[in-house]
């Protein structure tokens, strides 16, 4: 996958914990999207480095315990947003309940190319033209010049 953008990324939260900690368990949850999000922050686990410096010999370094991290999203405060309210409830110091958080990305990896094949793609570059009703009306294989692109787009805009 080449470069991508975070535009369109959403964060959502649910008051229930998944029955199983896998895709099926999280997929069964209902999450409420958090509105007014500017950035989500770093996501991912960090593993501590445990060190021991013997009096004799070099410092020894070991892989320590793993911290699955915390989210620090930047959000425009909106008291009327359901997701933000649930986020505030979840983060209250006296609340130890388990919540579920989901982050969706606008694009994903297709390392094997299987998704592209499923969509009928047979070569690169390839262009698809979808009309306003969602119907695939034209498929173009190979490079597409400006003039031809304009013709095809004009057809769609009629």
């Amino acid at each position: 996958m080449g470069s991508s953008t975070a535009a369109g990324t959403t964060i959502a939260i649910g008051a229930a914990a998944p029955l199983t900690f896998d895709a099926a368990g999280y997929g069964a949850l209902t999450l409420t999207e958090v509105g007014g999000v500017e950035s989500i922050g770093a996501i991912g686990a960090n593993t501590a480095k445990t060190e021991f410096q013997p009096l004799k010999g070099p410092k020894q370094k070991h892989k320590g315990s793993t911290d699955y991290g915390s989210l620090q999203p930047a959000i425009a405060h909106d008291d009327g947003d359901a997701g933000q309210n649930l986020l505030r409830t979840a983060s209250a110091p006296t609340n130890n309940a388990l919540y579920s958080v989901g982050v969706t990305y606008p694009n994903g990896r297709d390392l094997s190319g299987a998704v592209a094949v499923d969509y009928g793609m047979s070569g690169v570059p390839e262009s698809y033209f979808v009309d306003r009703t969602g119907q695939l009306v034209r498929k173009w294989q190979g490079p597409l010049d400006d003039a031809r692109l304009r013709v095809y787009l004009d057809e769609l805009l009629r």
Partner: protein
Amino acid sequence: MSDKKISAFIIRDFKDAGTEQSYKQGETQDIPEGQFINYEAAGLVRKPTADDKPTSTSKSNKPDGNTAG
């Protein structure tokens, strides 16, 4: 989560950024169970009580001021 709907009393005005649906304080609406659980945990809705019924159904034929029971 099931498609089951639960009657919810709206405690205060709020909107859902995902569904883009807005809710007005004092109304009672049937909402999907999963959403209800989230809204309830956020302190935005609760299950209606007998006292809520007169204000819950604005389209009701009952005159204003009726009390349940």
